[in-house]
């Protein structure tokens, strides 16, 4: 069994305590309009193309066996429908314009990378974070990884949106020290509009999660006009009010990184650009959550 991973970030300092390695799983079933990792949603390999680096040398077209890339009037033209994601064009590019996003790792391979920074985790009280995408969509692989990491005594975090069956969550929890729980909004209708899925299952799982006693940090992306109404935030504060093991609520104001990223994938539609919420709203919201703690 292999896991499809799209990034491994070492010296990750924002995904749980201490120095961490964050492993980003590829594939997600919540399609947030503002996603800052739009390449993580699709659960398959993808070809990334950075047009700024391309010098139209034609080397990628030369090596392509499927005519998915050809040179038309001196410029690279890519046919998504013909591409088999064989990856031959990637090493042919000397400019680093092409990259295969997503790589299949065996648990052993992935673990061997994670464990290289063990000294740093121990010295800093850090560990490993499984993020995504949605790691729980590759539950079996995730469970294997969690068990390996716990066997080595590493602190483990799981970054999830909880849009999966509860049984699947329950099964991995014994090997999770901290859950980074993404909540994208309390209003079901708006949630559906913003992310393509409604939030009933998510909130139900969240309630159950809070009852298990596992440490939780809630993270809420805030996007102007989409989920930044004060009612929405009040509802969230009320929802979290009685959670015993909630150690923090982190508000993540929107940034437009995903827009640029989405433009680098022919397989992706261009992402719409949103706005960050007003800073006084963020201050107000912080106050709201502080009071509820």
């Amino acid at each position, binding site marked *: 069994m292999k896991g499809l991973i799209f990034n491994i970030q*070492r010296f990750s300092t924002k995904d749980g*305590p201490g*120095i961490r390695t964050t492993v980003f799983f590829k594939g997600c079933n919540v399609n947030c309009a503002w996603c800052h990792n739009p390449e993580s949603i699709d659960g398959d390999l993808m070809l990334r193309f950075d047009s700024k680096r391309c010098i139209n040398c034609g080397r990628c077209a030369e090596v392509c066996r499927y005519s998915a890339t050809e040179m038309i009037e001196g410029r690279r033209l890519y046919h998504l429908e013909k591409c088999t994601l064989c990856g031959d064009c990637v*090493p042919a590019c*000397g400019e680093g314009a092409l990259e295969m996003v997503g790589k299949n790792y065996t648990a052993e391979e992935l673990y061997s990378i994670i464990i*290289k*920074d063990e000294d*740093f985790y121990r*010295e800093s009280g*850090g560990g490993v974070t499984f993020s995504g995408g949605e790691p729980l969509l590759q539950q079996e692989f995730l469970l294997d990884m969690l068990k390996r990491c716990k066997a080595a005594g590493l602190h483990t975090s799981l970054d999830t949106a909880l849009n999966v069956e509860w049984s699947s969550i329950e099964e991995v929890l014994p090997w999770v020290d901290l859950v980074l729980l993404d909540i994208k909004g309390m209003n079901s209708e708006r949630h559906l509009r913003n992310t393509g899925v409604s939030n009933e299952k998510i909130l139900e799982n969240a309630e159950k999660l809070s009852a298990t006693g596992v440490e939780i940090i809630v993270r809420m992306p805030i996007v102007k006009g989409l989920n930044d109404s004060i009612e929405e935030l009040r509802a969230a504060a009320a929802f979290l009010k009685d959670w015993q093991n909630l150690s923090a609520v982190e508000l993540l104001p929107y940034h437009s990184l995903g827009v640029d990223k989405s433009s680098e994938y022919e397989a992706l539609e261009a992402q719409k650009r949103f706005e960050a919420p007003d800073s006084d709203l963020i201050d107000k919201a912080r106050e709201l959550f502080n009071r509820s703690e």
Partner: protein
Amino acid sequence: MLPKHVEKSIAKWFEKDGEATFFERIELQQEAAEKYKNDAYAPRYSRILNHILENITLVIKEGENIVGDVFEIIPNDDQREWAESLSEEWWEDVSEEEKQDRIMFYYSPGWIKRRNPIFFTFGHLSYDWNAIITKGLDWHKEHAQELLDSGRYSDNKDKTDFLSGAVEAYDAHTKFIRRYAEEAENQGLKEIAGICRKIAGGPAETLQEALQLLWFIVLVSQKVAGCGVFCFDRMDQYLLPFFENDLAAERLAEEEAFGLIVEFFNKNNEILDHGDHMSQESEVVKNNLEVTYDDPNYIIIAGLLSKGVSGVNKLSHLMIRAQHEMRLRNPFVVVRWHEGIDPVFWREVCDAMRHNATVVVYNDETMIPALLEFGIEAEDVYGYGYYGCNDPLIPGKEGGLRQLWVNLVWPFELALNGGRALCAGENGCVHDPEANFGYRDRLIGLMSGVYSGDDEDNNEPESMGDFIKLYKKQLRFLLLQYMEKMEQDYLLEQKYSAGRMRIEDLFLQGTIDEATNWIAGGTKYHKITMQGSGMATAVDSLAAIDLAVFRDKKFTLSEIREALKTDFKDREDLRIYLDSLPKFGNDIDEVDKYATVVTNAFCDVVAEMNETRTGLYSYMPTLSTDRDFTGMGACLAATSDGRRAGEQISENQSPYLGADHSGVTALLNSVAKVPFDRITGGPLNVMLHPSTIDGDDGLSKLAALFSVFMKRGGMQVQLNVVGRDELLDAQQKPDQHKNLCVRITGYSAYFVQMGKIAQEELINRTVN
């Protein structure tokens, strides 16, 4: 909080006119050189010094507790022209042989142009500061006088001249300090007048007296005699008794001590010029008429006193705090890390570093074994320090900078091509080993041209083991050639420099006792720092041969050789393939193991040189390039890591530009695999984005990050916390970023004062 007058002085320094010059020095020096031209060398030296010190303007600024500054003017065109003509007279209108007679080593024409040949020194050393403040100038003078009177050297005129010169030079210092005492008295500054009178001849008793005496010595050496780039040795150690006595006698509060330290640090910065001395193309550097550039003085703090005994004390804390609050380019504080270092102190160090204070860390746990291997005696080893840029020394016991930038990529090229440079033939290079290390390369200590290797019995290697043997063979060939020629040079230098006292000979151990300058053997240690350059390029190139030729058998050695000869002409496919192979800096063992191969090959040869040398000098290996990685790369053909001909080689201990992309822990893990217990210096520049280590939590992460790096055997680390956006913005709006201070290699610079090339180099290395 910094004292008001210091804040004012810092603000004023940023506004300082780049043309401001301590012009009196040049005029008085010329006057005196003429007046005493018929005197013997050493007395003449001291009389010139005395003439300057008797006549220069005294400067005491409002609010100062530590006084002593020089008077500057903006030279007019005539003055500038006259000063420029002196440089020509001294250095341009003379033959190389004559230059050799005057001085043996210089580091570039830019370095020597403002230096009068009789009044010559390069600094880059540490005085015996403790002896200066605990014994005083009178003791030093009497010691020289006694030796002179004893008749021990009466049959050697060079030596008696040397000693009588020294006596006059100490006297010149004393009289100069007395002038300040009078000036202070006239201005109604009774306390300062009293201090100056006391330390003009006698030892210091209080912290303020000690710092004041140190400052006068530095002012004279650095601004008048041109002996700068000091190492101040372990300042938190030798100043501690003064500080503790003051506290015990209740004549000083800790906060006042902090104020004095801040003033002393600021004095060091105040006398420097704007501009980055490694940007020789920049206008500020070109127009400079000073003997003091922007080179920093190093202060060593913390570290072990002996096995298991930490030197961290109250002054170490105060000095880190001063660096943190001041964030000046100068002085340059080296913190010596060791196992079990006080965690509170370590946090303070990391906090200063993440705010871009000029603080770097060295590891006692690797340095001490390395220094022991390369000739430092056990009784001296715990006292080690550094001067700029990142050269190790034993303070007080050796003279100034001697170095060779060893291009570690050259032996790779020679190994690949049977001992001949790859560009030979087509580009018209001649294969002539005898031409290696020409006079100029030896003088400036840089392998700046095309080199030839040993072309005998270089059979085509059949395994990676064979190839490594060839690499070592070529490296050995080059360095033994260097040693042979240098030893001849030094014999000549010693002959020429008999009796030629330099300012530093006054304050080193051994020179007065032997009545011999350090060049001719007065001090205990003499070493040449062998600065191994381009390690990562050599490592990546060797790993590529291993992977492409011997492991995967994708290409033959001769195929690669032919492609490199033509700089990958029509073989872009091969270049792209080589470029895509794993690189040093990503924590990949199959590549990183070559860091051990290259470092050990280098250290083995240096160790062999120390065993077989016949000259005065021993050799110490470091991994360092300073900013010369572009120049050294320009001489080389393409390499099997995918680097094109003439492109830069890797800088210092760093991976090749842009080759590390697995995060900073991976970078540090790779670097820590270098066997640093054999390497005696050289920097590692680490870049972090401010957002990754912000807040208290971020500080803990940084402290853990560097502490693990040291525990894993890293040797040195220095940090720039800056985003690419900020650097680009600073290029556009320099006025808004005047105090953006960045670490370059062995020194810091204000980004907006750096030359365009240096700015671009830094931006290229900065992610985000």
